[in-house]
């Protein structure tokens, strides 16, 4: 099967800045894929190149087998992009914007039923005739997502879709996006909420300084950090003998990395000997944030 996205040796320079340094990436059709990385890692540059908003310095990008430049029309028809910024056209209402957006992609009146469906599914029904200017931030975000879906693209890119969005919208939105994924749409997500990526995505790429530093299934990435995390709140500073285990600390709150639960007894006895009492204790599994910190530090 043709990959939904195929990127080979992609380089992008902005003057002296080498923003992307030979990125290779293939995303299969039907995947729920996350692109993670700190600010300035190159995620948005990669998405803008995919959408044809930027031109690569070298390398190739294909969407559903169509070259983003040589066959730009077919590539753009296959792609829906939710931009990161809350942009909108102040002259029109939600329904008008969606119809225009579908029209730009060659969809006419026959597409109206789909437009109604996305308005309904994203909770925009009572705002369909409201001017875009009058929408709240969350509603504008919903409208942006709806615009990206207006032409029913097989590949959907969501660039930080939940930034500044309340819990209710997040749930409505992810429910809808999950449904699209079950129906066969490929979803590519960038987010700063790592728990979202962990819960939703089957595969993850982590970027740093314009390169992909990790590309694996979510499960394999989580397995990279075996063991558990011990979260402790202590009455006094941690004894020196345990400092080698510290992952992070804040005041007298510590997170220690432990290989297995047998190590617990040793830690507790060391604390007892030092006369340090435990005010609170929690044993937690390593999560994507730990992997992220580990890989990018």
């Amino acid at each position: 099967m043709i990959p939904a996205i195929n990127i080979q040796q992609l380089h992008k320079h902005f003057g002296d800045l080498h923003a992307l340094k030979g990125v290779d990436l293939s995303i299969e059709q039907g995947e729920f894929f996350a692109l993670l990385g700190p600010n300035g890692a190159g995620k948005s540059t990669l998405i803008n190149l995919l959408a044809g908003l930027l031109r690569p310095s070298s390398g190739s990008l294909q969407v559903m087998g169509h070259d983003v430049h040589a066959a730009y029309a077919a590539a753009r028809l296959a792609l829906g992009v939710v931009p990161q910024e809350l942009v909108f056209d102040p002259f029109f209402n939600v329904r008008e914007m969606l119809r225009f957006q579908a029209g730009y992609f060659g969809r006419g009146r026959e597409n109206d039923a789909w437009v109604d469906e996305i308005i309904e599914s994203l909770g925009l029904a009572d705002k369909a005739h409201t001017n875009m200017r009058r929408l709240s931030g969350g509603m504008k975000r919903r409208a942006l997502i709806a615009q990206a879906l207006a032409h029913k693209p097989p590949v959907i890119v969501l660039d930080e879709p939940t930034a500044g969005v309340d819990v209710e919208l997040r749930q409505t939105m992810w429910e809808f996006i999950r449904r699209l994924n079950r129906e066969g749409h490929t979803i590519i997500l960038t987010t700063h909420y790592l728990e979202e990526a962990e819960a939703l995505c089957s595969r993850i790429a982590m970027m740093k300084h314009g390169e992909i530093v990790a590309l694996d299934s979510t499960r394999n990435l989580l397995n990279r950090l075996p063991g558990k995390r011990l979260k402790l709140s202590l009455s006094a500073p941690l004894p020196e003998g345990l400092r080698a285990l510290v992952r992070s600390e804040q005041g007298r709150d510590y997170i220690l990395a432990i290989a297995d639960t047998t190590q617990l007894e040793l830690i507790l006895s060391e604390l007892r000997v030092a006369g340090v009492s435990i005010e609170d204790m929690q044993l937690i599994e390593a999560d994507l944030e730990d992997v992220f910190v580990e890989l990018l530090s």
Partner: protein
Amino acid sequence: MKTSLSTSSNARSNLLGTWTLFKKELLRFWRVSFQTVAAPIMTALLYLLIFSHVLEDKVQVYPGVGYTAFLIPGLIMMSLLQNAFANSSSSLIQSKVMGNIIFVMLAPISYLGFYLAFLAASIIRGLVVGLGIFLVALLFIDLPLAHPGWILSFALLGSGLLGTFGIIAGIWAEKFDQMAAFQNFVIMPLSFLSGVFYSIHSLPPFWQQVSHLNPFFYMIDGFRYGFFGVGDISPFISLGVVAGSFFALSLLTLRMLKSGYKLRG
């Protein structure tokens, strides 16, 4: 077979995409028609009232043509040109500054389709404003229509030329200040010094020569010829200059759009 099907599907998408962008651009100016249509008509009428009141009995530019009658075609054409320019330029700069141009940039509309949509909307706004001034002016004075074909040709070519110029300005400018500079230091002087209010034959020889370098002069003179059958120069020369300028600017615009200048980094 698959290739030809997908090619025809892409062509249909592009056609409908262009049509949608054109409709959106029309609706955009129509939604604020007090500002985009009524206001320029009002401004032109104020010029007409003031200048005709002051100069009607004192100036006769062409034999048998009163000053008010002489002035009206010039005012119509000046407003038509300014509004054709304003339509494409303001739409593009607003979309760029607000960021919503991304919605069009993500779509599979070709650079030619993009150009045609903005061009056609600009022409229509120019014609609507021009027609509005013409109809209101008819309440005050009977205007001859010696050669309607020339009137229509110059109206279409003039609004096309300025609509194209507006696209170039809209792509080039990065902030409202730059656009205002373009409008106030290029468009306004060229339109005011083009013979809207006078015949260039009333100017000293040096300034007559300078006026021949102003493309607005040819648009206004050719347009006025369509009403009175008389002008400062042959309408064929004016048509050649205006059509040539339109063709050259269109090529430049298409080249800018194809290269993604200031739109696709």
